[in-house]
């Protein structure tokens, strides 16, 4: 507002205060939940859990008991155990796939944003092609041809994430490349390698990492959707998506079979979103936070 000469950019002054406050209890609760789920998934084998595959036809859809803390599912399998082993799948796919996107997309984005020119056109163009497919459709089609397996699933979801990471890395690099410290390094005669690795990479990494966390949330959702449709990891491996899909069949008699994994998944996705979004707000160089 040009005419409010006494406005003193209130928002600009106020925003660091608001940002600092955003790292409030919710942020730490989210971190806590992520750690909790991660620990359970990592140490599932050490926990005194019944096997997630053992069926007990006499104990189908058993209610919550001392033996089955969260009851049993339609085939008499322990829900808690399947939930924890399912967390493994969600987290493996959810963490590994975005790593692919982060590495390839991040590298392409930094290079494109730094070198510009024809290389940038090529990268952006090929990403446009990848983006021309609705992501879930492409994932479905490729899984259909490749066959269902954990590795295939992770690879596909990883490749699908490349364009988004590329965009973030490129946008951040474009902003940073005009900053004084990069220009100063160039003026001092630093070579491309040095500028890329020493000046740009450390500064691009934080925004990318924040975006990575959001990518984890998205990947967990897409993995869930594919598994829900029966096109994710092959049975009898348990996954939250599979559990929700199976639970749907018995919504009328035992809605908890769908709702327990649903709530678990929601909380996990929400936690990653929350932490990712908080970090993104903190690290976005366009807001002058760096």
């Amino acid at each position, binding site marked *: *507002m*040009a*005419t*409010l*000469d*006494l*406005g*003193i950019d*209130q928002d600009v*002054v*106020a925003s660091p*205060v608001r940002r600092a406050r955003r790292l409030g209890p919710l942020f730490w609760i989210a971190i806590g939940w992520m750690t909790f789920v991660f620990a359970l998934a990592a140490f599932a084998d050490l926990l005194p859990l019944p096997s997630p595959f053992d069926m007990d036809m006499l104990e189908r859809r058993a209610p919550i008991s001392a033996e089955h803390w969260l009851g049993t599912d339609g085939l008499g399998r322990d829900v808690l155990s399947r939930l924890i082993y399912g967390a493994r799948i969600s987290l493996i796919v959810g963490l590994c796939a975005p790593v692919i996107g982060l590495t390839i997309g991040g590298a392409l984005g930094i290079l494109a944003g730094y070198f510009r020119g024809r290389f940038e056109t090529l990268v952006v163009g090929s990403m446009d092609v990848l983006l021309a497919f609705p992501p879930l459709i492409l994932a479905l089609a490729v899984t259909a041809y490749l066959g269902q397996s954990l590795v295939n699933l992770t690879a596909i979801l990883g490749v699908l994430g490349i364009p988004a990471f590329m965009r973030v890395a490129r946008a951040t690099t474009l902003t940073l490349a005009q900053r004084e410290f990069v220009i100063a390094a160039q003026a001092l005669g630093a070579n491309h390698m040095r500028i890329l690795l020493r000046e740009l990479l450390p500064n691009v990494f934080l925004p990318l990492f924040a975006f990575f966390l959001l990518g984890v949330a998205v990947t967990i959702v897409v993995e869930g959707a594919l598994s829900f449709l029966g096109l994710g990891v092959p049975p009898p491996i348990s996954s939250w998506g599979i559990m929700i899909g199976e639970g749907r069949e018995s919504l009328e008699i035992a809605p908890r079979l769908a709702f327990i994994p649903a709530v678990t998944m929601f909380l996990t996705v929400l936690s990653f979103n929350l932490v990712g979004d908080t970090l993104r707000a903190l690290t976005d160089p366009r807001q002058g936070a760096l």
Partner: protein
Amino acid sequence: MTEPALLSVEGVSVDLPTPRGNLRAVDQVDLSIGAGRTLGIVGESGCGKTMLSRAILQLLPKKAKLSGRVMFDGQDLVHLEPERLRKLRGRSLAVVFQDPMTSLNPVLTIGTQLIETLQEHLELDGQAARMRSVELLAAVGIPAPEQRLMQYPHQLSGGMRQRVAIAIALSCEPKLLIADEPTTALDVTIQAQILDLLAREQRRRHMAMIIITHDLGVVAGRTDEVAVMYAGRVVERAPTPDLFKKMHMPYTEALLAAIPKIDARPHTPLPAISGRPPDPTRPTTGCSFAPRCRYAWAQCHGEKPRLEEAGSPGHQFACFRPINTAAGVPA
């Protein structure tokens, strides 16, 4: 002034909460303007003159706190219910903002922005509103007004846009027009044209006008009365001829000296006012101009001077060390 004023601002203060504390943008300002008269409000940027205009219009930012009374046509605008205030705005109380680049809506045509005002306040059908819009655009000196109605603001030059903004402000024959730095954002060559246009239309329509500016030169020949603001307060107020003949406030003198002289010898350094305006979040005990004033003495730093009439009738100033008085110029 014996007749009741059209607008009288009585003890108006504006406080803005900021992270650094309370910011008093306008401090106990009293002003008035009679029907058909012209008042100039002058001060450097940051002195609170724009906030004062927003306070008169009741267009302050949401967080701002306003105290005092703004009497317009017998009604206190501060406590007027929103619906009746809305009926006044644009109808009898109009404004021209500083920057015509931002004050016109970029996604609506000139015609829409003119006609909507007309139809809001006057009972005109579409055809009549169009006709009147064309007349208005022609009156403010816009060529080919019919075609302009269909155009968007970005298709017009800055000067043309300000003419459109003036046409909008004039559209409902307001009793008072507030022109908030109407020429600051424009090329120098356009500035005089716009000011002359405003003066001409004011005389023709017998409306009162407040011109807000940082440039004493702008108000010189075009106002009946001038109020000089500094750090949120009115520090000197006088009939225009009187002020220019015999200014009493050192700040006014400094403002006048800051206008580059056309007849100055080449490479004369511009006489800028030294120092910066005080931080409005830190209230001072004495005169707020004292730190920058070359005449200031002990009393100026310890005590706040009141705005009082002295010398000629209608001439008020707030200073312990006035210049051009019988008491003699301070050494």
